[in-house]
């Protein structure tokens, strides 16, 4: 059956205007648009979207509530499986998950599941009942390390089961990557992140900031001295990677983590905050993931002419399609099939440019993607005042080093099975600390599975 209604476009801030502000780019659907878009869902008997969602949200069911105008009902359906719907509606790579599996996508445009989820979550924050019910305590304490997506998802599920959950956060603010990594224009901090964390706290979850597990306390001391029955480690993938090319320690070379943390967590873009940030006039961002897009679009908003260099082609960019599209609309230059070989400095040790080499795609590598190979003699220079390296991260070794009997793999990731069970009884792990850098929703899925495993462990099942 063909669907006659085209996908309802979402309203966005004008690209020229938004290139110089940090307000949210996407306005989201209003009620009328949401009702129309929801009417497009075919309610497949065997909904492929649900199995493509890492936390298996009952998508057709919530969309049916939206189509019927029952937004509170839709919200309740999503809440069964997701503790951060307003976040996921904004940052999930829907095109490779739920929407990528939507049957409508075969011949046309898939249902805008992400935008509908966001609509429901925003509606609920504005109108919904805020009175999340605290479950009666079952007397067991569980510690969660890290207040990012996996930690929050794990904590919510455990709290709903009656556990007394304390989340330990190393930074001064809860949220992990939602707070330090993803910019305001993509994920508003007060309106969305703080509000969703508020609803996790409403379940009775305690969040203790300024505690670095592995330094301030250890996993061992939480288990042995503080009466926690189990610990979930969701500490994220912390350490920024650099390329190992000459000039990376010049003034004006930053990791995307540093650049984004200064802007997002420390609000350097606002005059009323003291943290400084430097872009200069021309910025080159190295990398092709969401973090590279975020860094480039942040630099642009701070007034810099911005270029993204990536060693493969546009087709291989790992970033969400919407982010790439937005970055292009905003006027960021994409230099594809380009790989840096050296960062060039002036006589005072500041960046003045970056020497790159052209690449071409060769044979497919282990990941099935064609690997880029340098074109001999094709080196050229791009002028730049600063260079931001967005090449991914590796796990922070702090917890593994200070926890007895916790096994890690060659890359330093904590070894855990699909349920988050590690080599140390009572210690569970999930998210980027286990997988290396991935997505918000995969981390949430891991947190939820670990919560179920922790419940089984404590009950001795």
């Amino acid at each position, binding site marked *: 059956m063909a669907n006659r209604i085209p996908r309802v476009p979402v309203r966005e801030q004008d690209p020229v205007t938004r290139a110089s502000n940090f307000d949210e780019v996407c306005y989201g659907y209003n009620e009328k648009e949401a009702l129309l878009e929801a009417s497009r869902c075919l309610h497949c008997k065997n909904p492929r979207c649900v199995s493509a969602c890492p936390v298996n949200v009952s998508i057709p069911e919530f969309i049916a509530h939206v189509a019927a105008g029952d937004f509170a009902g839709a919200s309740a359906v999503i809440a069964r499986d997701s503790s951060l719907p307003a976040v996921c509606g904004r940052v999930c790579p829907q095109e490779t998950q739920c929407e990528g599996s939507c049957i409508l996508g075969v011949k046309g445009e898939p249902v805008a599941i992400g935008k509908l989820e966001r609509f429901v979550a925003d509606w609920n924050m504005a109108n919904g009942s805020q009175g999340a019910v605290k479950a009666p305590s079952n007397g067991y304490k569980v510690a969660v390390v890290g207040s990012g997506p996996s930690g929050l998802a794990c904590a919510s599920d455990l709290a709903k089961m009656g556990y007394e959950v304390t989340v330990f956060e190393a930074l001064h603010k809860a949220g992990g990557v939602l707070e330090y990594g993803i910019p305001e224009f993509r994920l508003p901090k007060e309106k969305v992140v703080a509000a969703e964390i508020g609803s996790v706290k409403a379940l009775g979850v305690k969040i203790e900031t300024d505690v670095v597990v592995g330094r301030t306390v250890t996993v061992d001391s939480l288990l042995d001295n503080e009466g926690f029955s189990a610990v979930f480690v969701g500490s994220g993938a912390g350490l920024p990677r650099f390329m190992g090319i000459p000039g990376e*320690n010049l003034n004006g070379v930053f990791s995307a983590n540093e650049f984004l943390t200064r802007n997002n967590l420390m609000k350097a873009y606002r005059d009323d905050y003291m943290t400084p940030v430097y872009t200069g006039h021309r910025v080159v961002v190295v990398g092709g993931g969401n973090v590279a897009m975020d860094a480039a679009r942040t630099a642009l908003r701070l007034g810099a002419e911005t270029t993204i260099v990536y060693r493969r082609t546009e087709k291989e960019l790992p970033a969400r399609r919407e982010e790439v599209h937005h970055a292009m609309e905003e006027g960021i230059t994409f230099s594809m099939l380009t790989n840096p070989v050296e960062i060039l400095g002036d006589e005072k040790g500041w960046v003045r440019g970056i020497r790159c080499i052209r690449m071409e795609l060769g044979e497919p590598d282990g990941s099935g993607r064609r690997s880029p190979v340098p074109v001999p003699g094709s080196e050229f220079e791009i002028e730049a005042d600063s260079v931001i390296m967005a090449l991914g991260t590796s796990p922070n070794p702090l917890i593994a080093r200070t926890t007895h009997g916790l096994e890690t793999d060659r890359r330093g990731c904590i070894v855990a099975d699909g349920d988050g069970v590690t080599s140390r009884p009572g210690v569970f792990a999930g998210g980027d600390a286990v997988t290396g850098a991935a997505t918000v929703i995969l981390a949430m899925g891991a947190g939820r599975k670990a919560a179920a495993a922790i419940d089984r462990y404590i009950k001795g099942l």
Partner: protein
Amino acid sequence: MFEIVSKEMLTPAICRMKVRAPRLAQSALPGQFLIIRPDEHGERIPLTVSDYDREQGTVTIVTQKIGASTSEICSFGEGDSFSDVVGPLGMPSDFTGMTRGELSGQRYIFIAGGVGTAPVYPQVKYLHGMGVPVDVIIGAKNSGLLIYKDEMASVCDHLYICTDDGSEGFHGMVTGLFEKLVLEDGNSYTRAVAIGPMIMMKFASLSAKKLGIPVTVSLNTLMVDGTGMCGACRVTVGGKTRFACVEGPEFDGYEVDFDEAMRRQGMYRTQEHDAEERYEHECKIGRGR
């Protein structure tokens, strides 16, 4: 919130505060640092731990007003609270992992410059407690800027003072006094530890190398999170990039590329200057503290 239980000015520009932070006090060791964010709008400022009291649950910090953020810290008073104090961060000094047996036969010399004298104190106190003979050089521009003389005298074997202008003690730089102690006075040391301005640590390391004494330095690099996440603190040590916040802050002074470290320390000088002017202006019009 982290309450300031006591505050005193050691010089007109250097203040000492005891801050209630029980978890931090419980785990802190000599050589480690902490990060303070004074209030919602402030920076995250790394400061070396200058002392800790596990029973009282307090840590001591010593701050010199050198810019807007450090001035802001010093503007807080007894009974006020900082929004955030997190730590201990970084690795403790190597000797904290050594037994009495391993430390026997060692003789340390500490070279302390300016406000860097404060973090030397817990190290000297620790070694003194382990029965290790320790000499200390405290250097400052002039007599009025010397700090921690009495505290240090009570935990070290010999305390030597030097001032750039000769207003107290040895007239000259700490490196001059260090070399004199070894070459002229016949002292021998198994290790030197230099903590102070980057330029002082550079020259102290050169002197130590000349004298054949291993030297440890504590690098006060730029940092944001202090947990290894941002990489702002990267320094070249022995030709390799290291993160001062998680692998340091103490490194082998022979191996540190001090020129690069000094250059990187000045990365935000323009912005810091602007911030300082803004801060002073706001204080004058009464918005600041």
